[in-house]
């Protein structure tokens, strides 16, 4: 059981547990997203990502989730189930992000391609009101987990 984002290996995180954590709150979380015409993690961001690109992209996405999406998502009134699932996701994303070390000497074009994909996501996020954007991004964690599963060795 480990993630293999190209050269980046991450052990010690059970993807199934993250899926179960999100599944518990999926309906509640996604019901709060009123902007159904917009998708942040759209095809151009995640489709046909090469192994070499994947480490750069996942690191950028996870850091964004940790620093921008999750950081202000919870308030003290948040439902206990959401807090529990949130804690499982945030702390395991924290573990994964801390173990990702993309190589420095990769070809510039690879990291640049990953950066362009991430910027597509970030621009779409910034076009929304911050709270709506955080709600939508949190609701799209299942899309992110599905993409991450492609790089997971059971």
């Amino acid at each position, binding site marked *: *059981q480990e993630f293999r984002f190209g050269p980046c290996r991450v*052990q*010690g*995180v*059970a993807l199934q*547990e993250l899926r179960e*954590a999100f599944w518990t709150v999926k309906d509640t979380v996604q019901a709060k997203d009123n902007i159904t015409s917009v998708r942040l993690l759209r095809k151009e961001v995640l489709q046909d990502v090469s192994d070499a690109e994947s480490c750069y992209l996942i690191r950028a996405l996870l850091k964004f989730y*940790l620093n921008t999406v*999750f*950081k*202000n998502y*919870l308030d*003290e009134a*948040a439902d*206990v189930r959401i*807090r*529990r699932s949130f*804690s*499982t996701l*945030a*702390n*395991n*994303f*924290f*573990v994964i992000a801390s173990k990702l070390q993309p190589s420095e000497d990769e070809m510039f074009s690879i990291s640049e391609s990953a950066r362009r994909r991430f910027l597509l996501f970030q621009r779409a996020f910034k076009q929304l009101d911050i709270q709506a954007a955080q709600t939508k991004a949190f609701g799209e964690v299942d899309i992110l987990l599905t993409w991450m599963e492609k790089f997971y060795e059971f």
Partner: protein
Amino acid sequence: DGVAVLPAPQNLSVQSTNMKHLLTWSPVIVPGEIIYYFVEYQGEYESLYMSHIWIPSSWCSPTEGPACDITDDITATVPYNLRVRATLGSQTSAWSTLQHPFNRNSTILTPPVMEVTKDGFHLVIKLEDLGPQFEFLVAYWRREPDAKEHVKVVRSRGIPVHLETMEPGAAYCVKVRTFVKAIGRHSPFSQAECVKVQGEALPL
């Protein structure tokens, strides 16, 4: 919020063995009264970025205590802060927080319990069910000089596993240890257990 008149629970500590984590504390005693306790936790992410956010424990909000199985709350290999408070009716104590954050990578891993049996000429092992986070590394060999040790990784739990078809008259030994993927650690090996197959060794 109730006025904090009850003494806060003291001596919080966590005992963790084979990825089962138990938080304990000294009970608050009020003669003739039942004290209830509330346990809450926060992972490293919450403590760094949203330290005001605490999460009620799955099984102990409330509990009559003074212990709480926090295994289901510890869902990442990061340090966790834990706190407990006592309540009696509307009276509420202050929170007591575990002095050092708990990380599941400190759990004590014990050699697993195994049952080695013969099913005819088949060497069979049955391992205790320690949960989905555990793999078993089984080493087995024929007891003879310069014996070659074979290794098999077993992920199935609590069901018999065939290791080897044995030769008549020979003795075979087995030892096993666990591996926990979530923390990347092994347990010590168990004691070796040997079994012997009846009958004469077949002429070559």
